[in-house]
């Protein structure tokens, strides 16, 4: 049968009035929520434009944040380099600490936990994922801060030959290290749940095959489960990274805001872009407020990029599974 001379008919679907209105309404709603992102970006750009124009590239590269004196003798100067570096440092500490734990918790829940505690533990994990950040903050401020200052002191006394474990003064509270630990705890649930999802999709027959070849449980996990879940794990880690980059109050409460690029993670000085905004907002001059809008835009774009990439990776891992 030759299909070359066949003409496919276009199926014309005539929709009723109700359907046309319905579809249009749903599309409008969806596009409205879609356009929120664009709206956020454009409004922040609109408000912060003046600061971008005045400071140009040094807004990103300068570490100096000074609203200037009211009489205009000291000019205002805005740069978020210290805060950006602080955001990245705390986020990297967070993910470095959280990732091994996320892998272990996920493996435990999927392959080690006895089946009768698996469900309750998963529920508990979902529950702690819902602990508000201000509660992490108050706990970090009162409990973790003192505990971890002691750990930091020990780390410093053992490893002070590594440059980023050095400190300028023996004060160990409110450091990027402590903020990073708190963030690690905050992003652990989301990273774990992504890890768990990809690990649970590891092909059962390949695991059985690994056992069948005389492999141990760990052998099966290392040769089948872990390679299978690698890309999804990367996505989960990036989702966590995005959360850690944008966290405000918890970091505000456990980190000393200092406008200096600081890579000594145990030192009591640091900051992140989000807590900069929260700290300066209430006392900001109109011009400084524009600077905060510009900082907000930078934060928004960075986290959006990280999140979008993570989402792509996680979705691909979900679909190939």
């Amino acid at each position, binding site marked *: 049968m030759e299909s070359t001379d066949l003409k496919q008919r276009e199926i014309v679907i005539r929709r009723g009035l109700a359907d046309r209105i319905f579809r249009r309404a749903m599309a409008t709603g969806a596009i409205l929520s879609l356009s929120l992102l664009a709206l956020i970006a454009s409004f922040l750009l609109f408000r912060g434009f003046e600061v971008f124009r005045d400071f140009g590239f040094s807004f990103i590269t300068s570490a100096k944040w000074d609203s200037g004196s009211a009489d205009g003798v000291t000019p205002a100067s805005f740069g978020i380099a210290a805060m950006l570096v602080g955001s990245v440092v705390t986020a990297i500490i967070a993910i470095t600490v959280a990732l091994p734990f996320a892998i272990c918790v996920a493996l435990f829940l999927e392959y080690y936990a006895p089946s009768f505690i698996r469900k309750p533990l998963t529920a508990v994990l979902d529950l702690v994922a819902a602990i508000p950040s201000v509660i992490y903050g108050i706990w970090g401020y009162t409990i973790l801060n003192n505990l971890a200052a002691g750990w930091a002191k020990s780390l410093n006394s053992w490893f002070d030959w590594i440059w980023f474990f050095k400190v300028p003064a023996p004060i160990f509270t409110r450091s990027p290290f402590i903020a990073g630990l708190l963030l690690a705890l905050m992003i652990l649930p989301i990273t774990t749940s992504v890890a768990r999802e990809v690990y649970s999709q590891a092909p059962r027959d390949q695991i059985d095959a690994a056992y069948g070849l005389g492999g141990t449980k760990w052998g099966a996990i290392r040769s089948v489960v872990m390679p299978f879940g690698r890309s999804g794990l990367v996505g989960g880690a990036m989702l966590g990274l995005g959360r850690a980059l944008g966290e405000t109050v918890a970091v505000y409460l456990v980190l000393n805001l200092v406008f200096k690029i600081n890579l000594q993670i145990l030192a009591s000085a640091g900051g992140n872009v*989000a807590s900069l905004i929260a700290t300066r907002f209430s006392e900001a001059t109109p011009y400084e407020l524009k600077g905060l809008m510009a900082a907000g835009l930078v934060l928004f774009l960075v986290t959006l990029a990280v*999140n979008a990439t993570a989402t792509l990776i996680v979705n691909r891992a979900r679909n190939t599974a």
Partner: protein
Amino acid sequence: MSTSSIEATSIPQPQRPWRQAKRAWRQAIVMLVVSVVGATLLMQVTGLAGVIGSYVAFALVFPVVAFLASMKYGKKAGQDKMASAIICLAFGTAFMPWMSILFTVFNRGREAFYSGFLTTDMLVNSSDQPLNMGGLSHAIVGTLILIFIASMVAIPLGIITAIYIVEVKGRFASYARFFTQAMSGVPSIVAGLFIYTTIVVVVFNRFNALAGGLALAILMLPTVARTAEEVLKLVPDDLRAASYAMGASQFSTVFRIVLPTVRSGLVTASILGVARVAGETAPLLLTSQYFVQLTTNILDGPMASLPTYIFANLGAGSDTSVARAWGGSAVLMSIVFILFVTARLLGGRNTKSRH
């Protein structure tokens, strides 16, 4: 041969030879004892101290002991046991801080409770006065109002977005799907800034609760949309086909068949959205701020909420105000937990929250 002798001789007792024998338990106890001794030695050498120090020492020693104990079955078996030990220990370690948070919140929070804690506001009391004066009624009412505003916006919009993605499958469906996912990572402070520049500055020219609610709505939207999308996907296509086959329009198929089928799932999606934003602080600092009195006017002036109540009292710094902050945390935590458990009970096992 009589039947009784058959029973006596040929029916074996059920056995599970793969289960760990008593010997294995003895071995485990020996391993534990050896690890504790090793950990004590390690503490002497390194200067680890205290409860956490001893745990760390134990966590370092135990996997090694597990490895050595299984070495007689070969290196592979040793590695296997060590991996099991590490994974179980890491799991326990990860849960400790969370347990500490939950314990501390309710333990410290107890101090602030007295008969009027939930029913009075802070209009006539300052936060450093004794703990039997003043309370957080204003913060509870404020949080409820903010959540209500956020829900009024985010729940319909989120469900509409999900319907567009799953049912209408329009031209932008894949974009809507991707961006609502990516949107869940928008830092909460950025949502606050956005609402501040638009609603607070341009529309009302003052801080108010409506702005706070809208900021929360931005954060709530992705959770509702994503979870609702997953819920709608659970509706079998058979049902849609059956509806269309009776000449139903898409409109009636969605509203009379699909949505009623997943009603409880959508309630769950909404509750998860509420739980997600109930404790948000940063955006409220820029929009509804904090106020000491119970107010219900959403258009004029700041309004208290539990997160900002905690934040403000923590900032005040006195012993009693910090105690009030813990009390507020306990109330907030309870609200979030109740929401969460309700969502679980309603949604059953097939509703999964998405991030």
